[in-house]
């Protein structure tokens, strides 16, 4: 009798790339639902566009690179990239924005760097940043939250806005500036944080409506950490560092700097901490390295939000720390078993 010879170990505990990626998708669901509830179905429309673009682009690139389609499409990594980008985009952004961003993320940021496992930067964030720098106007008009307007745009309006002609009036009726934007412009005009925060767009903790979305993301993220799909060190490091640095400055000058809970619960802080920064391929890989990497993102986010030129800094912070990840890994190797401390 002849048997196959493979190397040990001969058992595998059943983990797979597809399973890891699917878990990320599950963890995104609560946040996605919250987004729909607060901002209307726009995010679903964006997700649909992004996912179909991503799968098409992925299939195209895999074919061009001569990789087996079934195996690599089945890993769901393109799906995750597409969803992350769709969530980051304004729900009412025109369709070509989404297509462009997703295509760029998959084709350039992922496959031209070698595909799954080889991309040094988070593809979704590359797509987002490219859009943000190229189309700042489209990228900063967010749908107004439910709590502000009392209603969200229905599906028809959404579809019309996404795919149809975008007149300034209809747009203005359903969108509002994001809180971080508002904060920046107002502080730039000399108002104090407290003054600005009395604006109706602000809610209890951060931006009105956003608290709920962020809490949903937090729930999904914590579940993911529990499942060990994401390394807990990265969100812990990032949110911890963000909290510490914002508290420090807020204590020093509460008029110029927003309080820590505001930083944590508005914008993409929580979403970024759990879902963007934890992308394993481009993050640091050692336990201590991940804490440092997360902390770096936290600090950079605060810096960009407070003194930089863009309203939210998570995307840039993540990309900047991606660059530093290999170096961090190099200097944070764990002590090997038996090695003298």
């Amino acid at each position: 009798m002849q048997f196959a010879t493979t190397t040990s170990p001969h058992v595998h505990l059943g983990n797979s790339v597809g399973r890891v990626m699917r878990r990320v998708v599950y963890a995104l669901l609560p946040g996605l639902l919250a987004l729909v509830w607060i901002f209307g179905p726009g995010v679903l429309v964006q997700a649909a566009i992004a996912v179909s673009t991503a799968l098409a682009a992925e299939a195209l690139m895999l074919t061009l690179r001569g990789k087996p389609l079934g195996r690599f499409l089945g890993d769901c990594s393109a799906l995750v990239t597409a969803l992350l980008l769709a969530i980051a985009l304004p729900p009412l952004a025109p369709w070509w924005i989404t297509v462009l961003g997703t295509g760029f993320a998959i084709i350039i940021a992922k496959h031209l760097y070698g595909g799954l496992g080889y991309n040094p930067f988070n593809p979704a964030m590359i797509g987002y940043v490219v859009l943000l720098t190229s189309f700042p106007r489209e990228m900063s008009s967010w749908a107004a939250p439910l709590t502000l307007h009392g209603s969200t745009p229905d599906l028809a309006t959404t579809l019309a806005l996404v795919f149809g002609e975008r007149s300034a009036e209809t747009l203005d009726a359903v969108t509002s500036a994001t809180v971080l934007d508002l904060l920046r412009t107002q502080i730039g005009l000399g108002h104090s944080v407290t003054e600005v925060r009395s604006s109706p767009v602000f809610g209890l903790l951060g931006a009105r409506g956003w608290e709920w979305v962020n809490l949903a993301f937090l729930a999904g993220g914590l579940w993911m950490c529990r499942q060990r799909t994401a390394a807990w060190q990265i969100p812990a490091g990032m949110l911890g560092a963000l909290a510490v640095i914002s508290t420090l400055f807020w204590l020093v000058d509460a008029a110029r700097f927003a309080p820590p809970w505001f930083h944590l619960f508005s914008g993409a802080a929580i979403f970024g901490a759990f879902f963007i920064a934890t992308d394993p391929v481009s993050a640091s890989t050692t336990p201590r390295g991940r804490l440092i990497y997360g902390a770096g993102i936290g600090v950079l986010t605060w810096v960009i939000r407070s003194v930089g030129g863009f309203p939210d800094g998570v995307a840039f912070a993540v990309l900047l720390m991606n660059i530093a990840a290999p170096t961090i890994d190099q200097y944070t190797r764990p002590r090997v078993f038996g090695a003298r401390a």
Partner: protein
Amino acid sequence: MSVLNTITRLWRFHGGLHVPEHKAESNSAAIEALPLPAQLVLPLQQHIGAAARACVRVGERVHKGDALARADGYISAALHAPTSGTVVAIEPRPVAHPSGIPVLSVVLESDGRDEWGPNSLPTPIEDYLRLDPAYLRERVREAGIVGLGGAAFPTAVKLNAEGAIRVLVLNAAECEPYITCDDRLMRERAHAVIGGLLLMRRALGVKDCIIGIEDNKPEAAAALQAALEQFADDAEDVLLQQIPTLYPSGSEQQLIRVLTGVEIGRSRRPVDSGILCQNVATAAAVHDAVTEGRPLISRVVTVTGSGISTPRNLEVLIGTPLSALIEYCGGYTPRAARLIIGGPMMGLALPGDDLPITKGMNCVLVAGADDVSAPEESMPCIRCGECMNACPANLLPQQMYWHARAREFDKAQQVNLFDCIECGCCAAVCPSHLPLVQYYRFAKTEIWAAEREKKKAEQARARHEFHLYRLEREEAEKAARLQAKKSAAQQRGHEAETPAADPKQAAIAAALARAQAKKAAAKAEATAGESSNELSPEQLEKLAAARARAEAKRLAATQTAGEAANDATAALSPEQLEKLAAARARAEAKKAASAPAQANADAAPALSPEQLEKLAAARARAEAKKAASAPAQANADAAPALSPEQLEKLAAARARAEAKKAASAPAQANADAAPALTPEQLEKLAAARARAEAKKAASAPAQANADAAPALSPEQIEKLTAARVRTEAKKAAQEALAAATAAVAALDADAQEEAPTASPAAEATPAPLTEEQLARLAAARARAEAKKAAQSGKPASSDQEQ
């Protein structure tokens, strides 16, 4: 205070996995003895260290328990006949190794009687716990016991750490899934296990023992506890400690960590920390070896998995074919998909079951297709870090993987590749299904190979440098020789003009003729006979060559050197020729029948005809050895496990005896050719030869026997080197004189032969560098300085002579 009192808690190691245990399949099956197989194959290398040296001959009948092979070197283990029968072959056979390279094995055909020999068992010892530790260790060494947990490291070597050990750990964890042989052994023979533990404790001179057993084996733990109580006071300071079930807590390093908190890494051996780990099956084997005198000839093997009809635990003789185990357990089921030796995490998958059981095999796992992971297509690494979380050595498997894959082996080493214990945790959790462990093994073997190559290149460089230096020196010496010749010729007048103008040319021509002669040996002899009447130098040359060959073969056929010395003096007569022919026939016959031992083979120096002939005799024997490819011969002498030094002394002593004989042989014409050789010089040359021959024997793979041992040790090589240098020095010193004498004795036929021999012979002796010379050469490559170095180097090396 006992160290045990300080152990108040268990420790953790990083990572580890909960792998489905699958112990239930076989842990209720009591150990059964497998019926005697018809044939056993016993590889000489079943352990870590040097392969054992066979000490039986093909065709020899052995009893159960007789030694088949002896430990060869310090780290090696003896091998015993698992049953009575006949040795039918000693030849390379496939073993369970990923390479599939066959290993020299003793094939034993069972006679079905399974009887112990009168001498195979040393006397059993009743009061074994009061034995002298040194005697105990000797007993363990003689019994050929190796670590039975899988690594197969010779146990006696580990027990030699007397005094350095504070705590002896008995590894009863058996953490690999499926395997239950230790579990069963503890349940059924707990007394022997504890007895063995106490014996090893005594051999090591330690007081404190900890038995570490995973908490999934409560029955075994209870049995051990009961046995401990039986031993009562004798088993004081033995702590039975249950530990949580977590793979790989049965790995030595991890077990010691869990029990004592001490981490033993690559930089710190267990002994350095004063902790030694032994497996339970090893303990039982030690017990049997001491109390019954029973060598390690069988072991318990678990046969399990869904690919086998009835999983069982079997007591199996070493050397039994796997197929016999499979058959006894009801054969394969249709689900059988992979045959694994060892457990599913670290085991080795075999292509088929026609391989023998060796000492280190604890389990034969026939896995069904759904028990094992299919050789799945792997995805790229997504750097998820799962592998890092699982790694019990706290490594970064992912970074090791990237470097190994890119063949950046130095970087792989920087991320501590060699701390990897190949436990397989990383690959078992990798979402990308990467064959991580194979990458590590690949990288490790590549690094070792590169190191070997580097060493070899360095050696070659040194030898080449010496080669160049030697050529230069010889050039100078040749000039000196010519000078001497010229003056000798002037002194002796016209007589000197008769010898062949170019002895070397003549030698080559003659040699060519001999090559042809080989193709028609009878014809060559006839030619030689005719030639004896003529005195043309060329033909004399041929004649002498033929004679030398004949004599050599004759020597090979005769047993005593004394006879040889006498024969060598005989003149060439028709009867003699006949005798030679007869001798040749005998030699051929012997060759075919694998000649008996003539360990004095190695004692043939180079210069006098007798010695040349003896060298030829050595060659004949070497040929014989090869022809038979049987390792048995030289062992006859070497059997009592001679240490390398002893072998060397033996060779030297023989050489001395021969040299004396040669020196006292009746004077004849050709004695002139080597006039300056004193008996001591001859002796030294002989010793050098002996070593060279030994070395050569080592390089012939078919002769993994006595000769191989000394040749492999570095000191041996060094000594050989020194001897060669000495030989060279002596020859060089005599050469001018020899040449002159040869010229004088030009009309003498035998001298005629010798003259051309002398100079090539000098060149013939390779002379690598002594360390001292190496240093000198490195310091100054320039020719003048090299010469100087040689001049001062020569006396220095002769000082080293004993």
